[in-house]
């Protein structure tokens, strides 16, 4: 059983083919890295997997269950979580509230118009635990707007982890971070247990290579190389694609 | 049989007037992506200004042009000093135009009082002409002709001039236009003034038929809205077709279902908004 698989995925916008016959299969617990130059279609692929975009052709399966037709809002309930390249959190709310919202998304409590959200002790305790995992528990009551960029990146990851995903999609988690911050995030990511399958998009090769077990290289919407880290790094085409930048 | 002919010709007239009213609205909506809720006020203001100009001794056509220019000036000030400040916040811009419409309406009430004012039909266009054996006021037929002339002139502007090319580029994709070096904010001002001018002139032209009275703005604005939603924003052809469609809907609707007069108008608008948000002619929204 594969954790996440896409088969012959196609997506065009007008005349532009952004995703072209993309197939890949990620094993449970695997650490997969997706790389490729700008415009290669990496984030589009994520958007297709999470359902924010509908493919023109092809199929997506999650633990062998076909989710191609499942609406995007249901996919988190099935175990997919993702982070975004551009931070899309709730700036006026505290870190604790941000993570609580994430937890609430999968809970039937989210429809309750009578209970007091701040009184949900179990929920809030879990939110604190998640913040601990990303070493931000000390800032739990700080409004997001008053935290640093690096801290927000960690909150992004916390939001995704809060939903106990089976498959975690990280979209350029290191973007814009300082060296130290990258180290922190890398430690965070490598510390995630193996019952979570991780697929990461990254542009910055230094940090990402440490993380990857298998790598898929996208170029102009197509999969051009795929293999273990060693194989892909050694592949002449990889250098071509990147040196050509 | 005669009733239908009368209705049809009246619809054509109304359509012509609506085109004059809506063309500017459509351009502004297409380029700046906002429904200018002050547009009805521009229409009414133009008409009111003309009444004063005519009372001061100017001729009808002079009053129309000058009235239009004054409204255009006002529009320019609004765009340059208020709307431009809110660039990018379309919703805020819409609300501002709504607030301005209240202000203009009250100022008009203050200056010209609450009594309806008739604008006399210009010399040379008085009397009746025969169409299909029925006599129609010449002026009403003239209005349709004027609408066609204006449509042609606008088409020439959009299709044949550099300004027109810039406007079309802006309507298509304002961001891209900016990138290619078009001074989009200045274009906005120009088009807003043009829209205001057209509305003001339309108000004067409509004067002999509708008169001017408080509340005229509130009656014309929804009609312009319907025309543009049905015809698509930023589309000249759409405004033309939409205007005549609305003219027919309104007159025939009034005649056949007087109780549902407004429903007949707004229901199609609602349907289009809900089913095909870009109108019948416009481009699909991103």
């Amino acid at each position: 059983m594969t954790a996440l698989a896409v088969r012959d995925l196609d997506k065009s916008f007008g005349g532009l083919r952004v995703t072209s016959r993309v197939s890949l299969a990620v094993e449970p617990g695997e650490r997969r890295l997706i790389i490729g130059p700008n415009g290669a279609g990496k984030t589009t692929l994520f958007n297709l997997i999470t359902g924010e975009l509908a493919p023109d052709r092809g199929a997506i399966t999650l633990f062998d269950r076909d989710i191609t037709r499942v609406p995007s809002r249901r996919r988190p309930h099935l175990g997919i979580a993702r982070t975004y390249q551009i931070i899309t959190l709730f700036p006026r709310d505290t870190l604790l509230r941000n993570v609580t919202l994430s937890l609430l998304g999968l809970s039937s409590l989210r429809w309750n118009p009578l209970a007091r959200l701040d009184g949900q002790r179990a929920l809030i305790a879990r939110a604190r635990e998640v913040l601990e995992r990303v070493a931000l528990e000390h800032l739990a009551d700080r409004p997001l707007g008053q935290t640093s960029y690096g801290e927000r990146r960690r909150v992004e990851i916390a939001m995704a982890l809060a939903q106990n995903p089976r498959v975690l999609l990280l979209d350029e988690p290191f973007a814009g971070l300082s060296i130290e911050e990258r180290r922190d995030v890398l430690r965070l990511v490598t510390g995630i247990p193996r019952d979570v399958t991780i697929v990461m998009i990254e542009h910055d090769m230094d940090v990402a290579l440490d993380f990857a077990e298998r790598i898929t290289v996208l170029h102009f919407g197509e999969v051009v190389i795929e293999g273990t880290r060693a194989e892909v790094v050694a592949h002449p085409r990889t250098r071509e694609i990147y040196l050509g930048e | 049989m005669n009733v239908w002919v009368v209705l049809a010709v009246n619809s054509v007239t109304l359509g012509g007037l609506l085109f004059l009213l809506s063309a500017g609205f459509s351009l502004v909506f297409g380029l700046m992506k906002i429904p200018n809720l002050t547009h009805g006020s521009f229409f009414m203001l133009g008409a009111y200004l003309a009444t004063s100009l005519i009372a001061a001794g100017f001729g009808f056509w002079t009053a129309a042009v000058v009235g239009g220019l004054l409204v255009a000036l006002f529009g320019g000030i609004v765009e340059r000093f208020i709307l431009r400040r809110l660039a990018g916040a379309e919703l805020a811009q819409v609300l501002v135009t709504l607030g301005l419409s209240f202000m203009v309406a009250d100022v008009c009430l203050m200056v010209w009082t609450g009594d309806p004012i008739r604008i006399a039909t210009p010399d040379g266009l008085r009397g009746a002409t025969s169409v299909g054996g029925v006599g129609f006021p010449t002026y009403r037929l003239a209005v349709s002709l004027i609408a066609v002339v204006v449509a042609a002139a606008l088409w020439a502007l959009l299709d044949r001039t550099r300004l027109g090319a810039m406007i079309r580029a802006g309507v298509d994709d304002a961001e891209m236009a900016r990138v290619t070096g078009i001074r989009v904010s200045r274009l906005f001002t120009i088009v807003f003034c043009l829209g205001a001018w057209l509305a003001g002139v339309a108000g004067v032209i409509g004067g002999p038929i509708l008169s001017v009275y408080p509340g005229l703005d509130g009656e014309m604005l929804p009609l312009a809205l319907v025309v543009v939603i049905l015809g698509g924003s930023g589309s000249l052809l759409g405004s033309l077709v939409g205007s005549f469609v609305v003219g027919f809907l309104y007159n025939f609707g009034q005649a056949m279902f007087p109780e549902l007069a407004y429903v007949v108008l707004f229901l199609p608008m609602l349907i289009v908004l809900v089913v095909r948000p870009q109108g019948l002619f416009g481009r699909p929204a991103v």
Partner: protein
Amino acid sequence: MKRIALGAALVGLVTLPTWVGGTYYVNIASQILFYAIFALGVNVLAGYAGLVSLGHAGLFGIAAYAGAKILGGGHGHLMVALVALATTLIFSAVFAVLALRGTGLGFVMITVALGQIVWGVAYRWISITNGDNGVTITGRPAPFGLSLASPRSFYWATLLVFLLAVASMAVFVASPFGASVRGTRDQPRRMNALGYNVWMIRFLAFLLSGFWSGVAGLLFLYYNQFVSPQAVALTASAEALLMVISGGTATLLGPITGAFLVVIMKNVASAYIERWNFVLGAIFVLIVVFMPEGLVPGTVRLARWTSTAWRPRAVQPTA
């Protein structure tokens, strides 16, 4: 500290008829209260859900007209309330389904169209609505035999409903559902990705909003003993929106303050200032231009949010 203020306010409100100085002012106070309920209703959408509606006077009016018709049919006041509110809820649902086809500006335009259709029916479908002449009713409810005919008793009844509205709003705001609604305002895409059903959340918020608008409409009917197309005109919706934005959206106090300001201006100030509409428009313009926090929806706040100093260095969103 907050509790003391609230307590004092409550005492002040309850004892108002004794200190406010005359029946005229008691009536003004009643108006402020039910318009505040209306504003609170509109704010559920505009402030908490980020959806600006310029057609809510339509729902307000539907409740009033429905109430008037039922009462005219000889039914009791309880029936009136039930049917009027049920009707309003049904129309709110219809409005919601149609309006939610659009977002942002599209949503506004659709609500305008809907409001205009209601107005058109009120104005022209004379056989049902009596057109411009409006519908008159006689009598107010007499719950438990207590007459509401006098300004004072009507005021206290309205105050009771108002307090219920505020309390239920406060509960809603503090609830998980309330947080969900605000989430869809701030980051709809994110909420969707977190497993929320954004459409359904908005739809339910619309129903809540419509319900309270309907309640306000009924109170309006009983207060005036009359309803006319003017109550559902675009200006009425605009005034409701003005109440919401002038007091500050996304708070409970905001719409209440806004209702207070607008009603006072309209009734009291218009005795001194003839040009009420000019002032209304000017306030609208000033607030929107200078105090964008008085106006919530995504565009303005988003513009500020994305322009803060910490923009991520890696900027390409395409990959």
